């Protein structure tokens, strides 16, 4: 659970606490398919995945990796302060991968009376291959 966080405590260049997820099991693909409603067999059926060109079989849902990034973010910035969160999917994730989520504060400024922090977020596997790059914005309270 995110701890209390104030605008004054955040500085440009600060790192978000790293979150490490995995190794991802195929079972988690099945759980995520059921939870999200994305039943594309590319994520759960090795025979199907091979038939469409994935020689090692199924790959994880990109949205699962975005979900990991969301966990990292709202483990640091309380969910109620999150204003915007977006990602670009840049690589496929195979079962067995361990995913590290890192983030950094790129800017902070007051906009329309709100204390906004602008951050980047990246998910990489154990070989440093980038899976998603993204950004998020949060509106933080003042200490007083």
């Amino acid at each position, binding site marked *: 659970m995110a701890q209390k966080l104030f605008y004054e405590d955040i500085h440009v260049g600060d790192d978000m606490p790293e979150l490490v997820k995995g190794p991802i099991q195929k079972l988690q693909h099945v759980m*995520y398919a059921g939870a*999200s409603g994305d039943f594309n067999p590319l994520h759960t059926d090795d025979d199907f995945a091979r038939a469409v060109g994935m020689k090692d079989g199924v790959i994880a849902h*990109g949205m699962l990796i975005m*979900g990991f990034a969301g*966990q990292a973010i*709202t483990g640091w910035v309380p*969910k109620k302060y999150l*204003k915007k969160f*977006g990602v*670009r999917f840049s690589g496929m994730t195979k079962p067995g991968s361990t995913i590290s989520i890192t983030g950094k504060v790129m800017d902070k400024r007051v906009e329309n009376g709100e204390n906004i922090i602008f951050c980047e977020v990246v998910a990489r596997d154990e070989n440093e291959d980038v899976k998603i790059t993204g950004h998020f914005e949060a509106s933080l309270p003042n200490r007083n």
Partner: protein
Amino acid sequence: MADLSKVGTEYSPITWEVERGKIRELAKAIGDPDPIYLDKEAAVAEGYKDTPAPPTFLIVPMMWCDKMPAIINDLKINFMMLLHGEEEYEYYRQIYPGDVITGTPKVTNIEEKESKSGSRMDMVTLEVLYKNQRGEDVAKSRSLIIERK
């Protein structure tokens, strides 16, 4: 290839009743142990009315309402050549159990691009503005769907 004449098309709305169990199920599937998503008392102690929907929750109404496959068919995109390029959310209000959210998907852009390797692809941007049962804006999603050619 994607039907370029579809820019500006609005689809019939998605309506979704948000259940506490579905919020919990998504948090469990992601493996997020944060008690605000799992336990109402913990959420209330942190200043929420109830267990809030996690940041990526809007995938749930989009996929469970079978809307995405219907839109992909309507756009004449080959499902086998489909990639999810980008996903972005703007959050205006929390989404809580018992909320009934309604979203109207709209195609806001379609363009053809060439990748670094020289292959061509169509990039389709789909936006959905979600409102709750009180007519308040709760969130907007923007998805970039790529069809390889």
